[in-house]
């Protein structure tokens, strides 16, 4: 049966070749140059040094960038858990055509480039924007308020970009729930709040967790929104790596920033996946 055991590899060969040549090789070369030396006047020098990593791990400047990146990602994830789960629940209790229409409105923005969605927030956030005007009209602010170039602004805009992923993830879990469990709890005298807390949320936990991993990883590696709303001063890891690569031209340092981001993301994704599979494996199978 050598023919059948070779067939799947033959079928996969074209894709494997492309991946090895154009993904693994580039990633390996980035890993390699992260150990190179960079001199302001001499450029990139082939060497083996841990200088770049030591610089990132010891300087407060980079510590702040990593802390901001993961801090914002954490806040965005929490906001998405609350908003996304609630919206998925409300959507699942609607009947067509409303259900279909609103699902389209919630998921549709995923098909529009992040740059365009972020531009919308930049228009709303400016000191002459609608949010500033509304806050002043309501008497909540005495002067113009700008959310541009603030962490709050970045977090709000990123939540908008990421929340559809959470809605789909929880929505998929909700589809598998037997609606009579909810009816049973209600008929036994549970309040609506108790039903949500004790019956619904535990059953959709796998969806919430896998949505959270996705949102966290995507937020930590987001570029367009932190760059446009956060501006030059509020850097996160991706925008800092971009600056090192395209402005300072310190490729070794940019590469080291990227390698650490990649390692952090992969560790978070894999360990969270393991955790979910161990705790909720039975639910999935």
């Amino acid at each position, binding site marked *: 049966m050598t023919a059948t*055991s070779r067939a*799947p*590899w033959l*079928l*996969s060969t*074209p*894709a494997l070749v*492309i*991946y090895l040549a*154009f*993904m693994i090789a*580039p*990633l390996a*070369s*980035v890993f390699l*140059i992260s150990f190179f030396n960079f001199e302001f006047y001499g450029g990139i020098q082939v060497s083996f040094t841990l200088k770049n990593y030591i610089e990132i791990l010891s300087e407060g400047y980079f510590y702040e960038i990593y802390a901001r990146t993961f801090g914002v990602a954490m806040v965005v994830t929490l906001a998405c858990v609350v908003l996304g789960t*609630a919206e998925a*629940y*409300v959507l699942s*209790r*609607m009947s067509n055509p409303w259900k279909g229409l*609103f699902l*389209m*409105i*919630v*998921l*549709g*923005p*995923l*098909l*529009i480039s*992040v*740059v*365009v*969605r972020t*531009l*919308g927030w*930049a*228009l*709303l956030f400016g000191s002459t924007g609608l949010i500033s005007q509304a806050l002043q009209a309501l008497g909540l602010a005495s002067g113009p308020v700008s959310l541009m170039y603030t962490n709050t602004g970045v977090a709000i805009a990123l939540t908008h970009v990421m929340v559809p992923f959470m809605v*789909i993830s929880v929505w998929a879990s909700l589809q598998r729930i037997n*609606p009579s469990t909810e009816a049973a709890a209600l008929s036994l005298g549970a309040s609506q709040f108790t039903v949500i807390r004790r019956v619904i949320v535990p059953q959709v936990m796998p969806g919430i967790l896998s*949505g959270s991993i*996705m949102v966290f*990883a995507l937020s930590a*590696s*987001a*570029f*367009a929104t932190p760059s*446009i709303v956060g501006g030059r001063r509020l850097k996160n890891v*991706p925008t800092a790596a*971009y600056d090192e*690569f*395209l402005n300072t031209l310190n*490729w070794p340092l*940019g590469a080291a920033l*990227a390698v650490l*981001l*990649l390692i952090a993301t*992969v560790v978070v994704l894999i360990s969270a996946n393991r955790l979910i599979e161990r705790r909720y494996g039975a639910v999935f199978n």
Partner: protein
Amino acid sequence: MYLKNGPIGLLFHTIFIAFILAPLVMVCAVAFTGEGFISLPSNGLSLRWFKAIANNPRFIDAFNFSLGLGVLSATFAVLLAVPAALAIARFQFRGREPLMAFFLSPLMIPHVVLGLAFLKFFTSIGISGTYLGLVIAHIIIVMPFALRLVLASATGLDPALERAAYSLGATPWITFRRIILPLIVPGVVSGWVIAFISSFDELTMSIFIASPSTTTLPVRIYLHIEDTIDPLVTAVSAAIIYLTIIAIFILDRTVGLEKLFVGKGRA
């Protein structure tokens, strides 16, 4: 179903939908201003800035470029994804799970990392900033989306159909062409569509390897916003939103939106 949403649920829903739509509505509204600066249209709707797009070949060129790049990279991605998906769906072999994880791995890698990896690598092999470089990079990042949807449709195939074709004397190619391909067409089509859209929307990776002659539309918009936010870039963005709305309606009627989104995202 008899479980209905209460007033609190509906109130939350209204606020949530307003939150989702606010930035998009804002872009669409500001695009109709007649003023030379960012403002809501005050005295009537004006098409001034939509007309200005026509006089701005940089955006038109970038749009055409993104269109071509999307078609090309989605097509190549599907051509790679179909055999790979058939291998994973139809055979039990050692290394099947790792192979699938490997093919889906570009979803786990931050695009900024891929962007600088491609920039470094393409510079060293001399294709930095070229059309070829962008196509290759886009094939890699959209391939997992195509693979996932083709895989979903190939997994449900009944192996008996294939055996029947062989026993009636069909060659492997005829079996693929006449039996398997027609059955997985929905997955192939929706895989191509999501691959095209992912390529058309991509910014973070492309910005590293785009050159002035190979600028995609999102990169062009981003560079413009970095410089200045004006009604022109807002009108371009509004045009993208309108085109996407049309596309969403067509997709909903033909492929089905829910099916499309199964492949979006990474978990």
